[in-house]
């Protein structure tokens, strides 16, 4: 690498707006995240409105934290998908504007792969099987021959969405995931629907059953059983994919990965298979701009160039669509 390039990454797939600045040596210079507070679920248009209103301040804050000016940015990257159309468009338009105004290259990146790559950077994982769990996504992926292949994924709602919806329905307050995790610590187990299809999962029946059960059972017990059931499903498909893909490392990624019980369960499973367990630091687990910037650098360095016409948002951008040229 001739020069240490600096990339600005803009994340805006869902309710979070992020601006991150990363250098090509892998140093995170800034990582600012702003939330659109969720009242009764996410409204794509309202979230997009939030992102548009906060974009300028978020970018300025990131530049200030990195102690640089917009003129020092060499590349601008943005989350091109998958995500909510209106939110994606705000990030894309901002990135295009910066690219055109400053005459710097623009790179559209896949949000799910960004989670994996920032994890690899910070945990030093070489070739992990990744369980990526968030409010919008649930995927088990591994790299083989030029692509991140999806071994398992949810057939309906994401695990984070399942827990959040439960918390909302029970009026537990926010953030739902953390509250459910805390309540679960003093709960005990009863049976809830456990649905695994091959390496795919389904959480919608579990969600309905948990809400129903809460009419009779103690809330602590419902939280505990919901977590135990959902996480066992996740660990089971991860385990099956690990055997299938024959990897030696298991990495967690995404907002739900902060859950201690999930971490403990994955760690136990990994140990049984003599695989190394890795989890990136908390500040890059949730959606953030630094991961977008880092993937932007990896792609740029491997020769990827996007024209403005290539930067249309992709609401259903699949992980296995991307040709991985940097590995």
């Amino acid at each position, binding site marked *: 690498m001739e020069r240490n390039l600096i990339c600005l990454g803009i994340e805006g797939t*869902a309710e979070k707006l992020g601006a991150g600045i990363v250098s090509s040596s892998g140093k995170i210079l800034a990582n600012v995240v702003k939330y659109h507070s969720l009242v009764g*679920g*996410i409204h*794509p248009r309202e979230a997009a409105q939030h992102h548009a209103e906060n974009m300028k301040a978020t970018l300025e804050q990131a530049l200030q934290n990195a102690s640089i000016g917009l003129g020092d940015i060499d590349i601008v990257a943005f989350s091109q*998908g*998958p*995500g*909510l*159309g209106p939110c994606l468009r705000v990030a894309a338009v901002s990135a295009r504007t910066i690219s055109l105004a400053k005459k710097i290259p623009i790179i559209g990146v896949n949000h799910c792969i960004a989670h994996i790559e920032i994890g690899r950077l910070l945990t030093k994982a070489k070739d992990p099987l990744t369980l990526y769990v968030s*409010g*919008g*996504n649930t995927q088990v992926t591994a790299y*083989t*021959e030029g*692509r991140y*292949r*999806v*071994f398992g*994924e*949810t*057939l*309906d*709602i*994401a695990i984070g*969405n399942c827990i959040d919806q439960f918390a909302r329905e029970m009026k537990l307050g926010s953030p739902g995931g953390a509250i459910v995790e805390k309540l679960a610590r003093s709960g005990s*187990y009863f*049976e809830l629907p*456990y649905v*695994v*299809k*091959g*390496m*795919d999962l389904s959480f919608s029946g579990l969600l309905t059953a948990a809400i129903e059960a809460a009419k009779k059972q103690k809330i602590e017990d419902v939280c505990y059983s919901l977590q*135990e*059931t959902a996480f*066992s499903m996740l*660990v*089971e498909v991860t*385990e*099956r994919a*690990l*055997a*299938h*893909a024959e990897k030696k490392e298991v990495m967690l990624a995404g907002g739900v990965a902060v859950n201690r019980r999930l971490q*403990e*369960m*994955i760690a*136990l*499973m990994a140990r*049984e298979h003599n695989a190394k367990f890795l989890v990136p630091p908390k500040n890059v687990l949730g959606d953030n701009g630094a991961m977008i910037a880092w993937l932007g650098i990896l792609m740029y360095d491997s020769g990827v160039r996007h024209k403005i016409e290539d930067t249309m948002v992709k*609401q*259903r951008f*699949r992980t*296995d669509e991307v040709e991985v040229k940097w590995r």
Partner: protein
Amino acid sequence: MIGKGAEANIYLSGERVIKNRISKAYRVRELDEALRKTRTKREARLISLARRAGVATPFILDVNNPDTTVEMSFVEGLQIKKMLNKASKKDRLRICREIGRSTGRLHSNNIIHGDLTTSNTILAGDKIYFIDFGLGEVSEAVEDKGVDLLVFKKSLRSTHYKFEKECFKAFVEGYSREYKAYRDILERLRIIELRGRYFTERF
């Protein structure tokens, strides 16, 4: 021990395969026991049903050790996963067509495999044996049959990606030959795939 699947240890004793679903430290005891028992019993029952429906499977010899061990006959052959990418195009398509036919036969008897992948199909002689029915069930639901096809399609995509299209096409050829209602199932498969990809619905 001849194999260690994700959930079971497999031993060979003479002509017998002993499949023991092992306890997992990561999950609570009640759930762990319930899963191991129901799956072992289901596996034995569904393998027998599948055989009666004319699909090649091992035959069940015994279920024991508080219901977490099943004994069956040994199928001497090669996992499809291990040979499909190396096979000639002609063989590859023939095999996928054959897997499709057997799946059609299962579905016309309302048998759902539950984990239909190239790891759970064995080529022995010119026959393809189906194993590992622990996630299966008996169901008439179009949705369950659609998901079975999706699981197979995805195993092609993740492990035999170069041949996904041609293999799945051959699979569907065989499937439609054996199962009259194939159109409904394929249509549902399309809907399920769209559902999974429709990101906004996940919030």
